């Protein structure tokens, strides 16, 4: 076997084996620390395999390697291929997942040090399972295996969000994430159905009937809206912050929510033939970006700021992919994975220090947590799009693409978002790390080495990945050289303006009228309007319909039946009938319906 394929199988199989081991050997799992170290070792080995693969592919980006076996054989030919598919796209994603997963697993060791040993073991079993599921998704040779990974990732995320299952809010959030993404997943199932009905296989390169690509792309995009938290299906993501913070870094920033974007990248041949869906993506992505950024401005919980910011950045990626820039969307996925994981882990270090998510319990933390402050600030600057840092390059690519696609509305929304992003991140940085220290902040303690090392590792790509955009672009089969034009300069100006405004308001206490103007946004955000709308349409409407049917059944049908009953009773009064509930009514229904369809039969 090709050693490269073996490396991919290690990255795929090792986490699976570890998850299985921890699941079936409770003794090992309940030891806690050793189980954790085993899982971390597994993720590091997967990381080295992924690193070697990525190095090989950077050297020779055009290589494609497959090792597949047929699944679901049907009438001689096979519907689905399972195995590993290695090309520039899957290899780069594999590396991103491996880096972030290793950092998060290492970080969790310090973050969850207070957990009892059995819970820690359980956590690492879930982590290994997640790494396997994600790699299964990434290495998928066709849509069916991708779906398999997609569902496993969803199920694992349910377990991880609900990790603290004794908290009712965590259980509720986990259920919500499950139901919302499940609802969206019907799109993916529809896509699988139509794909196999039309082409007989699950390959995304198959030739589709005329107009088929639009339907297929639409179905796929519905699933993406759920997984990648696009408006109005984004509602589960902020609630998912009930999980441990490293989980948020891994699932809700770097990998799982990016799976939707990855799906679009993989199914590029389908989306390329669907201009209408692409236009919809561009617009919806831009709307999500702005909407989430507006809500992020008024959040008081540091994780919720980052959660809405993730929604917003995913909107960027979707918009860029909609504008036809595979490079822009995918590269932003990559840079965002690193700087957002960095931000979440730094936020985790802060939460660990002050035992609270609330920004008001922080403040002035830079004195106690110097390194964490540096990490968080650099992550924020990268997110805000400061030139030279990785986020700037990927965001610039997307804006250029949206500009070139001739969509001024989406471009305007995204540019506004760029300014807002800089503003709300400055607000967060100032509130958490500068200003007057709160009571809790004065007793804050710094993170240990297992928490600082991951931050240090993630700092490298968060700063420098932008410079690698050229070689990375070859992995996606594109080419790229950076050049600064008007759009880029306006974005820089907006970013700097946002930072300056944020500093003026929250750092120096000027222009206090402005934050008060955000009050309506806060009302919308905290009143969870979108959630209410969903609750109304989803449960109330469903229940309403059920009640309406019950009412119809009780009054109209029963009324009709009673009339018929009276009719029959009247004619056959002498006949004593068996009084068993209302079985007569049932019989009338059976004979009535039979008579009705018999009439139809005779007429036809």
């Amino acid at each position: 076997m090709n050693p490269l394929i073996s490396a991919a199988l290690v990255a795929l199989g090792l986490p699976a084996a570890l998850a299985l081991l921890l699941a079936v050997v409770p003794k090992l799992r309940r030891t806690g620390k050793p189980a954790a170290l085993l899982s971390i070792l597994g993720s590091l080995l997967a990381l080295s395999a992924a690193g070697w693969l990525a190095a090989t592919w950077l050297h020779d980006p055009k290589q494609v390697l497959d090792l597949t076996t047929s699944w679901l054989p049907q009438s001689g030919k096979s519907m689905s291929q399972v195995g590993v598919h290695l090309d520039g796209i899957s290899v780069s994603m594999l590396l991103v997942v491996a880096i972030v997963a290793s950092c998060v697993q290492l970080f969790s060791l310090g973050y969850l040090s207070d957990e009892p040993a059995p819970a820690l073991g359980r956590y690492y079993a879930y982590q290994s399972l997640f790494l396997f599921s994600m790699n299964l998704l990434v290495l998928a040779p066709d849509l069916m295996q991708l779906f398999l990974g997609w569902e496993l990732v969803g199920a694992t995320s349910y377990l991880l969000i609900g990790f603290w299952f004794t908290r009712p809010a965590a259980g509720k959030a986990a259920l919500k994430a499950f139901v919302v993404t499940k609802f969206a997943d019907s799109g993916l199932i529809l896509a699988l159905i139509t794909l196999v009905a039309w082409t007989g296989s699950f390959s995304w390169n198959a030739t589709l009937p005329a107009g088929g690509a639009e339907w297929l792309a639409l179905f796929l995009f519905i699933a993406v809206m759920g997984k990648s938290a696009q408006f109005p299906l984004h509602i589960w993501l902020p609630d998912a912050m009930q999980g441990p913070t490293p989980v948020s870094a891994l699932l809700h920033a770097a990998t799982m929510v990016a799976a939707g974007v990855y799906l679009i990248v993989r199914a590029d041949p389908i989306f390329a033939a669907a201009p209408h869906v692409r236009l919809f993506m561009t617009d919806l992505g831009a709307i999500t970006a702005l909407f989430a950024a507006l809500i992020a401005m008024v959040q008081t919980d540091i994780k919720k700021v980052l959660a809405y910011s993730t929604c917003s950045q995913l909107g960027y990626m979707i918009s860029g992919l909609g504008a036809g820039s595979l490079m822009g969307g995918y590269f932003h996925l990559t840079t965002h994975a690193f700087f957002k994981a960095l931000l979440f882990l730094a936020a985790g270090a802060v939460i660990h220090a002050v035992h609270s998510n609330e920004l008001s319990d922080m403040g002035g933390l830079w004195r106690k947590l110097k390194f964490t402050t540096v990490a968080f600030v650099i992550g924020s600057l990268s997110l805000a799009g400061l030139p030279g840092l990785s986020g700037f390059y990927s965001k610039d690519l997307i804006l250029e693409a949206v500009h070139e696609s001739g969509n001024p509305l989406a471009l305007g929304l995204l540019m506004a978002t760029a300014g807002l992003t800089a503003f709300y991140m400055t607000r967060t940085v100032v509130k958490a790390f500068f200003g007057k220290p709160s009571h809790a902040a004065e007793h804050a303690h710094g993170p240990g080495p297992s928490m600082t090392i991951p931050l240090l590792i993630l700092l490298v790509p968060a700063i420098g990945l932008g410079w690698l955009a050229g070689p990375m672009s070859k992995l996606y089969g594109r080419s790229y050289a950076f050049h600064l034009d008007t759009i880029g300069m306006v974005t820089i100006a907006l970013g700097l303006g946002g930072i300056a405004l944020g500093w003026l308001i929250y750092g120096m206490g000027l222009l206090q009228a402005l934050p008060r103007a955000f009050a309506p946004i806060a009302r919308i955000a905290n009143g969870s309007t979108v959630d209410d709308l969903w609750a109304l349409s989803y449960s109330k409407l469903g229940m309403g319909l059920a009640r309406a049917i019950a009412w119809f059944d009780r009054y109209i049908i029963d009324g009709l039946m009673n009339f018929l009953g009276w009719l029959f009773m009247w004619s056959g009064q002498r006949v004593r009938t068996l009084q068993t509930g209302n079985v007569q009514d049932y019989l009338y229904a059976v004979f009535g319906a039979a008579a009705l369809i018999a009439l139809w039969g005779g007429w036809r």
Partner: protein
Amino acid sequence: MNFHDLQPMALGVLLAAAAALVLLTDLFTKPSTKPNLGWLTFGLLSAVLVASFTLDLRGEVASHVWRGGAWPVFLARLFLVAGLITVLGGMDHIARKWTYRQGEFYTVLLLCLTGMVLLPGARDLVLLIVCFELMGIPLYILTAFAKTDSGPKPVEAALKLFLIGAGSTALTVFGAALLAGLAGTTDMSVLVSSTLSPLQGIGTMLLLAGLAFKIGVAPFHMWVPDTYEGAPTPVVAFLSVAPKVGGFATLVMVLWQALPRLIHVWGPVTLVLCALTLTVGNLGAIAQRNIKRLLAYSGVGQVGYVLLGLLSGREFGVAMMLFYLAAYVVTNLGVFLVAHAVAEAGDGETISSFDGLGRRSPWLAMSLLLFLLSLAGIPFVAGFWAKFFVFVAAWRAGQSEMVLVGALFATVALFYYLGVARAAYVNVSAKTEKIVVSRALAGAIIACLLAVVGLGAWPSPVVEAAMAAARSVSGIGP
């Protein structure tokens, strides 16, 4: 005709012989050894299942009246699996509650299975109806088995099934009589002549109405919740799967085999009934508090999906319908047996009786969860492929709207299925003691569990078998 000519229908003959054997054994058994009757039945059924693999079951009996081949064999195996799991899961309950009547129970069950196994091969209307009634009448007896229990519910359940069943049989026979009278023959292969008369349409519809009762298609479903609630759970488990398989096999024979030329009559009606069944079943289940009533409505909803496969028709649709039924048999038996285990422990039959099951009996709760996920069509358990394949068949047949409706109701169904799972895993209960499950019942649940997971991981063998079975029925080729 000598005995050898009956070889294609050997499974039916063997089952009838088994029924006689169990009845005779019962006569000469002391009450203390009667519990062994369950194992005897189990062994006999296993032997018949083995025979279905070793005997040559191809060919015809009495010129065209009964035909063997892959189609009746596939269905026979489904019936036998359902029978085996029911006997295994129910034998302790039966032995405890009806110690002196066990022989009757198993004899009647075996006779019911005889009718089922003979049903799919029938190529003659009269034989078809005889087989159908041989399947149906024992079911009336089985549902009435708990007549000595306190309260009116068991009697009510059986009586409702019987009364409506009798009415439906009248419809079936009347419809069949019209068709046979017009054609001048009862041979199903020449039932429809070149000249179509309105009476043929009426006959077809009456036949359809009568069959729709047995499989619980709305609006012929009203007996289902009442009967399920009142009848003994092991019987309900069997009732909820096997007769449905039989009903659908009959529908394929009647609609696709005998009356394909009348598709303009029965096609639209079946489509409307399918949509109605999906709606009534899935919405009806939402508000239920009794687990058996919930499963009754859920079963009605499931029938909607099977109907969709039937409608999509021809070879692929019918094959996918068969696969759906196979997945449904093991899943639904599993979920009823878990409910039975919980009820046996004295915890009642409401959904809240599952509270805290995840902590009390983790394995039982895990099985319940997997069965519920399979019913809901979540990847990757048997039920997912079942829904998936039926949807693919429907899409290929141009029923894309019905696929969307079906997918929508699959999401609705998630609510009530997860509601039960939620009770088991999220709700807390004052009770903490483990639920004691007898060995035989545990074995039956594990068998269902293995089948559900196995079909989820590797559906191909059963899919292939279903394709072969559908292909072997002449007249439904593409």
